[in-house]
């Protein structure tokens, strides 16, 4: 299971990456593996306000749908449009091309309280 060392994690299998004032988010390799083939991702639109721990997106396979929870609060400033026609990017490259959105964080300390890679790995056992 791929768990990059430079990211932070949430128990509900989201990852977060700090980029200055912003936080890029997506779902982990473990998650995409559990969901199997992703066929559709419902993303919030640019400008939408999200709250830590609240559902902000939906990932869908042929037979199921999963809520994705915002790791931090803030405003969505970038949406990965590529997922519209290429949802398989979530399976192929969950940490890079398959990212979901970039959030301008309103409360950056929330990021620091997220799980470390080691803690996330432990939670998977």
């Amino acid at each position, binding site marked *: 299971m791929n768990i990059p060392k430079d990211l932070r994690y949430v128990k509900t299998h989201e990852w977060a990456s700090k980029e200055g004032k912003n936080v890029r988010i997506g779902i982990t390799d473990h998650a995409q593996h559990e969901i199997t083939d992703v066929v559709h991702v419902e993303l919030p639109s640019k400008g939408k306000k999200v709250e830590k721990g609240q559902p902000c997106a939906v990932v869908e396979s*042929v037979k199921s749908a999963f809520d994705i929870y915002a790791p931090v609060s803030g405003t969505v400033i970038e949406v990965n449009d590529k997922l519209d026609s290429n949802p398989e990017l979530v399976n192929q490259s969950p940490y890079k091309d398959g990212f979901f959105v970039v959030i301008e964080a309103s409360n950056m300390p929330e990021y620091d309280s997220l799980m470390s890679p080691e803690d996330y790995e432990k939670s998977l056992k």
Partner: protein
Amino acid sequence: MNYIPVNEKDNKAMLESIGVKDAAELFSVIPEEARIAKLDMPEGISEHKLVKELERLAARNLSSKEYASYLGAGVYEHFIPAVVGEITNRSEFSTAYTPYQPEASQGTLQAIFEYQSMIAELTGLDVSNASLYDGASAAAEAALLCVRSTGKKKIAVSKALHPEYRKVIATYLRGSGITIVEIELDNGATSLADATKLCDAETGGLVIQSPNFFGIIEDLAEFKAVAQNCSALLAAVINPLSLGVLSSPGECGADIAVGEGQVLGNPAGLGGFTFGFLAVKKEFAWKIPGRIVGQTTDNKGDRGYVLTLQSREQHIRREKATSNICTNSALNALAACVYLSGWGPDGMRKLGEQNIAKSSYAFEQIIKIPGFSPAFPGRAFFNEFAVKTDRNVEELGKKLLSKKIMGPLPLKGFHAGMADTVLFCVTETKTREDIDRLVKTLSEI
């Protein structure tokens, strides 16, 4: 009558295998006080008696087989080619289940795919679903779709929509906290001025019907401009049979097209052979209600069809589904598919033109009769037209009935201030002789 093919010997063997002496033991789990000894209704009857009884009930109705009917208003009598019934009566179609196991349901799935394709073509939009219950609930779903897509909480609905559709939209939206504002009439059509006034930044959708309840053709492109101005969507409620000759919702810029599909190959049946169609621009595909069939390939590379985009639906999304719909009106949509297969673009155009020609002829002759005048002068119409009369509307109806003519529809119960107005519907099923007889009978009353 008995449809149970299990005899006593087999039942005995089955009970033995289960390990009980009597079938009643299997019901012991039901509390005694909640069980009944028998139902208080008559015993079963033979097929012969059943047929006699139902024929008796059917004979108590007057049908358009014996009476010339000029009733429309949401349910229409059109010519239905024999091939349509031949196909929908096939038990392989009628007794099949929902195609959840696609490999065993390619017949239904391909037919629905072809239906979706033709609806998309006719409406000039990108994606059609596999059908809804009827035009009214489809209009309600369109309103909900506008709200779901825009995130706004207000819908503007034209008063020229079929009154039952308006009522259903209001009922459907009750639980959702959405405000409905109604756009006023202007000489029988939707008032552009009022629409412009009512549509504001909070409006998520405009719902306009064309031809409207009075048969009047609306200028959908104008309402698209109004909708665009306030970043709302345009949901057009249309008559698919008219789309061989009238401009499509897609051409007018509509985002959503819905309506009643009964006109396509289904009989009037007391308004019970309905199906709602819903078509949208492709960006709304993942937000629409209802089943959708998609084309794909199998593990040998052959083409096949499956239900797709299912994660929108109730069996996966439950309370977050785009709709609660499960069973829809597949067989009626199949009838529409077979019906549409045989006209082609020229046939559809000619069909529309004939409906226009015959209703126009009837209109022209009727308003020549003293005491009959157009209710909405100057308005272009399709199939139906409203007429003001100085006759007592109730007496008129009774006298026409005595001459084996049904209709026109008195508008008294539908709109205030229209106690003297009636709605005539003339389709391609009427001959010149029929229309002349109607006119003659009217003029003698």
